[in-house]
């Protein structure tokens, strides 16, 4: 059974027919070919498939594609402004918060939602907010450092070069 849905993906409006059996993750990866969003556990535990829906972090593997109708979806592919990386992406690079990279898009999307929330986060808050994303390569120290740095930079903002994306 197919249904037509209309949504924005990384700022671009799209209409397509999706199968009621499809997850948003399957639509993003297989139909839109945005493979930066990863398929990890498939049951909402690892956070590798995290996307932003109306600005909030969701596991796209446990989100029905039909629910995306009318929503604003953001994936890792939309985070840089051309060649210029987002504040969060830059912080992850600078802090060496990446090893194999499989979990990184998810971590960046979750952190991006934090930087755009306008709220303050302590180190403990950051750990709590990133608890739905798992990294199996390394420790979480550099990831938490990167999130802390991104939050700080986003607060100060990037000045006249600001593209509105943190």
């Amino acid at each position, binding site marked *: 059974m197919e249904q037509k849905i209309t949504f924005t993906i990384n700022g671009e409006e799209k209409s397509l027919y999706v199968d*009621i*059996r499809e*997850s948003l993750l399957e639509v993003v990866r297989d139909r839109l070919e945005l493979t930066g969003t990863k398929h990890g556990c498939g049951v*909402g535990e690892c956070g590798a498939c995290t996307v932003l829906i109306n600005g*909030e972090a969701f596991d796209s593997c*446990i989100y029905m594609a039909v629910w995306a109708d009318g929503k604003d979806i953001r994936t890792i592919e939309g985070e840089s402004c051309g060649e210029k990386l987002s504040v969060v992406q830059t912080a992850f690079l600078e802090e060496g918060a990446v090893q194999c990279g499989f979990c990184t898009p998810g971590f960046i999307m979750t952190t991006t939602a934090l930087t755009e929330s306008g709220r303050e986060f302590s180190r403990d808050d950051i750990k709590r907010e990133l*608890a*739905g994303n798992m990294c199996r390569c390394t420790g979480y120290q550099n990831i938490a450092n990167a999130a802390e740095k991104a939050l700080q930079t986003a607060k100060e903002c990037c000045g006249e070069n600001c593209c509105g994306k943190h």
Partner: protein
Amino acid sequence: MYDIKSYINATSIEAAVSALAANPNAMIIAGGSDVLIRIRDGKKPQAELVCIRNIPELVGVTETTTGLRIGPATPFSKIAANELVKKYIPILAEGVSQVGGPQVRNVGTVGGNVSNGATSGDSAPSLFALNAKLELVSPEGKRVVAIADFYKGPGKVDFKPAELLTAILIDKSDYQGYRGQYIKYSIRKAMDISTLGVCAWCKLDGTKIADLRIAMGVAAPTPIRSRKAEAAAIGQEYSSELIAKIADIAVSEGKPRTSWRASREFRLQLIHELVTRAVAEAVRRAGGKI
């Protein structure tokens, strides 16, 4: 792809109830953080879904003349951030903000947590302590049941055919003047199911305990209230000695089992420790000095 046979997007309570009545195999889906995983596990082949997430009356928290009305399709993160919840029933915010992780809390709903009947649901102890009532609508009409009567066994709740949970109701008299705490013990701090959960909800009258409710998750096949421990506390002067006695009684009321997460003995120890801590903190938050 999920093994889904049909999908109906209900946009009103009436539409949802008639879709359920028309198909005895229909299954309600709201957030999907349990339902989609059961489908993925192959436990619900050829699922026939009725989606209630887009029914406006089922989402949000409102203050009525008698108390609070909580929409069951409200996600955990929205409950935790809600001003009415934070002001009147902060123990529910404390409970739901310990479910899973942030992404799961954005999608999973408080009504789903109640409807799946798990003794480990993080909203259950707080809702039991608040004497929550559930409004249920079926083709036969509307009924309101006490939450303690709704849980029938592990994963079993008292839904009649084609019945939909339409509101979680909390009376003013169950929160005015009360303060408390929910403590979740789990092996991991996030993305884990409660090994044991305790909620204490307390109202003081000077140095006396005017009322005390103790509710526990995973202490029995369903969430339970520790009625004997509560009775031993009400009307007494609060003290560490009294709390130690309450905790002993609560242990005698628990009927936990051994699972791969923890043994029965460890859970009994947790009842003692968590009741002690939660009651002491509830007394402090209610303005007592202990």
